[in-house]
């Protein structure tokens, strides 16, 4: 409880300040805006409740894109890291490509992927996977390469095969790195899903945010952003919990 108190107090204070600033009209006046364009936390909460069915429906669409995309990235990132770790030639050949792939902004390729793969879930899944892949692959590879060379020598004199060195030393060493990569991926996955929906979709929180923005439904837009943030936080928290179970020696 003591650990949770400071962040809870800070969030409460920020919401309180926001509430005061909006209900007195201070922000709207300062920006010379109509007051309905700057919703207060109370109005957002009200919108969250009134639109709960709509929000839940769209959140489910986005959550599915996030989870499936994240799952694909986890499998691909893990596989890629292990392959690059086991083959020096492959690592030297593919590593620069891996880094270069990250310099292409996802916003740019999202519309192209929609053109190629249509308006279904495929391009969304791909975009989320693309954005999650890099932190998982690079962190896992770093973890696999961070093994103490003396530990490998020791294992070799204890008759370990290549597979046993991997299973008993390299893989457990890399696990915490994999989790930290996965946590970064979980935090950026919703961004990928929103971009993907902006590039072309008929449902999902990203689609809803775009629609609300056009219709000046600012309270509902903030409510959708709130749900999106809650999804990212929940995913992050679940991963932290899983890490504590899977990596108890840390």
């Amino acid at each position, binding site marked *: 409880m003591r650990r949770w108190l400071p962040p809870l107090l800070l969030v409460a204070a920020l919401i309180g300040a926001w509430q005061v600033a909006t209900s007195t009209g201070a922000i709207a006046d300062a920006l010379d805006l109509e007051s309905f364009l700057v919703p207060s936390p109370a109005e957002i909460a009200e919108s969250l409740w009134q639109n709960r069915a709509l929000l839940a429906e769209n959140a489910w669409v986005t959550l599915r894109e996030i989870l499936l995309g994240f799952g694909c990235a986890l499998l691909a990132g893990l596989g890629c890291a292990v392959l690059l770790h086991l083959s020096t030639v492959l690592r030297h050949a593919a590593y620069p490509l891996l880094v270069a792939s990250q310099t292409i902004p996802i916003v740019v390729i999202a519309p192209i992927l929609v053109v190629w793969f249509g308006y279904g879930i495929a391009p969304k899944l791909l975009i989320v996977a693309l954005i999650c892949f890099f932190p998982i692959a690079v962190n896992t590879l770093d973890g696999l390469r961070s093994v*103490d060379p*003396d*530990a490998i*020598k*020791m*294992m*070799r*004199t*204890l*008759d*370990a*095969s290549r597979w*046993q060195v991997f299973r*008993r*030393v390299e893989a*457990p060493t890399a696990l915490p790195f994999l989790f930290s990569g996965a946590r970064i991926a979980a935090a950026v996955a919703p961004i990928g899903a929103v971009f993907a929906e902006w590039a072309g979709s008929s449902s999902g929180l990203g689609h809803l945010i775009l629609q609300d923005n056009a219709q000046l439904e600012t309270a509902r837009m903030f409510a959708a952003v709130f749900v999106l943030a809650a999804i990212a936080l929940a995913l992050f928290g679940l991963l932290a919990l899983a890490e504590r179970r899977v990596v108890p*020696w840390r």
Partner: protein
Amino acid sequence: MPGESISIRDLAHSFGELRAIAGIDLELPPQGVIGLVGPSGCGKSTLLELLCGLREPSAGAIAVGGESSAPGRLRRCSYMPQRDLLLPWYSAIDNAALAPRNRGAGRAAARAEAAELFERFGLAGFETARPSELSGGMRQRVAFLRTLLSGKPVLALDEPFASLDAITRAEMQAWLAQALEADPRTVVLVSHDVEEALYLSDRVAVLSARPGRIVAELRAPAPRSPDRDAAVTHPAFVALREQAMQALREASP
């Protein structure tokens, strides 16, 4: 009877331009214990890695039990590195039982094999402890049991007690002497501590600064006394230690 002879002839090894060791000759009978001392960077650890078949030498030959290929040496030697390198994801007993597990034994069988030694070497009750829960001395003991359980005739020990405090180190030296008494093997012990090398070995070789070569060889007092404090304060031991220190001073740059 476990233990194999070691025969090293005109051994040299370089890392690129850097000559680590040069012209080392050494003969060790089965169950012999030799201590290697020398200034830091004289190639002691390289010599152990060459012995264990973890590296191929640039020149010269090493044979362990008549086997001179690197895989053959690897099958006959086990290596205890300077740091205990216990794997934090395994319990103490699973760390000790790594070699039987690698050889294909089931978890229960491997643990049973290690449990016997835990009892014998004062680690009973700590089987399921995580390495982080053990003291420095206990960690080294588990690391040594892990080396013993490899079942290899030759043990290569690389400054096994360097990370321990003085009192624990003295205790561990007496403990190791007893352990080798109970389960004799051929041992090559690298140490920066002349007293430790003389107390634990039959013979101590002094290596020169890089490139390392043997510049002096001393025969340690035999038989080894189980009372370490009495042994190391014996006048003959003290004189021998002084002789070794002198050789070491001359060998240092």
